[in-house]
C-alpha cells in the first residue's frame, strides 16, 4: 500500500478522536518531515483536515478524516454552482464532472453499458 493511502486509512480509522500528526508518522515509520508532507498532501486533496492542538506543551496537529460528501456529487463544492445554467457552457447537460459522477453512481462505468 502506498504511504498516502496507508496514512489516510490510519486517519480514517482514528474516527472522531483523530490522530496526532506525530503518532501518524511513527505508525508509518517515516521521518517527521515526511509525515508532515503526507498530512499536508492529504489535506490539500480534501481527504483530511488538521486541527492545531497543544500536546505536552508543544503545538502540533491532530488529523481528522473529512466526511466524504460523495452523495452530493460534484455540484456541492463546485465554484460555478451559482452560475450553473446562466453562463455559456456551464450547465447540467454539458458538465464533465457531473457526467463522470453520474456514470460512477449508476454503475455504468463498471460494465460500459453507457458508452
Amino acid at each position, binding site marked *: 500500500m502506498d504511504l498516502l493511502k496507508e496514512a489516510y486509512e490510519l486517519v480514517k480509522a482514528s474516527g472522531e478522536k483523530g490522530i496526532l500528526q506525530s503518532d501518524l508518522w511513527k505508525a508509518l515509520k517515516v521521518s517527521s518531515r515526511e509525515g508532515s508532507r503526507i498530512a499536508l498532501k492529504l489535506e*490539500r486533496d*480534501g481527504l483530511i*483536515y488538521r*486541527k492545531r492542538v497543544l500536546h505536552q506543551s508543544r503545538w502540533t496537529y491532530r488529523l*481528522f478524516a*473529512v*466526511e466524504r*460528501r460523495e*452523495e*452530493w*456529487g460534484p*455540484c*456541492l*463544492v*463546485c*465554484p460555478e*454552482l*451559482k452560475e*450553473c*445554467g446562466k453562463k455559456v457552457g456551464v450547465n*447540467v*447537460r454539458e458538465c464533465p464532472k*457531473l457526467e463522470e459522477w*453520474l*456514470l460512477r*453512481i*449508476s*454503475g*455504468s462505468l463498471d460494465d460500459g*453499458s*453507457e*458508452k
Partner: protein
Amino acid sequence: MEGDDLLESSGIAIIRGITGEKGVIVVRAMGKEELTDEELAERTNLKVNIVRSILYKLHDHGLATYRRERDKKTGWYIYYWRLTIDRLKDVILQRKRLVIKNLKERLEYELGSKFFFCPCNGKRYTYEEALEHNFSCPDCSGVMLEIDNSRIIEALKSQIEKLEKELSSEENQ
C-alpha cells in the same frame, strides 16, 4: 453544528470549492479576528491582490463581511474583514437546494430525449442532433450508437429522493 465544526468538515470543502486551496489558508489565518487585507497577506505569505480576490469571493457567498475606515493620513479607505462563519450552515443548505434543483434538471434532460454517441470521441448527441447528422459521427463518419441511459435515470431518481430527505431533516434541525 457550530460554526467551528462546520469550518472543519463539509464547510472547508465548500470554501475550497469556492476559493481554492489559498482560500482555505486565508480562512484559517483569519479565524475569529478582524483583519485588513494587508495583515492577512502578511500572515499567509500570499500576495495582497490574491487575498483580496479571495475575500471578495467569500463576501459574494455571504461568508465574509467588512467595514471600512478612512485613513486620516492618506485619505484612502482601509477595509477590515472578518468571517461570518455563523452563516456557513445557511450557505451549505442553500447550496444543497441548488444541487437538488440541478439534479432534477439533469433528470428531465435524461428523460426528455434518446441519446446517441460515437465511440471515436464519446460525445453525446440528442436524438434531434443525431438526426441532423443522419446518425453518422461528424468527426469520423462512423455510425452513432444509441445510449441506454436507464441506469443513470434510476440513479438520479433515487439520489434526488435520498438528498431531499436529508435536506428536509437538516432544515428542520
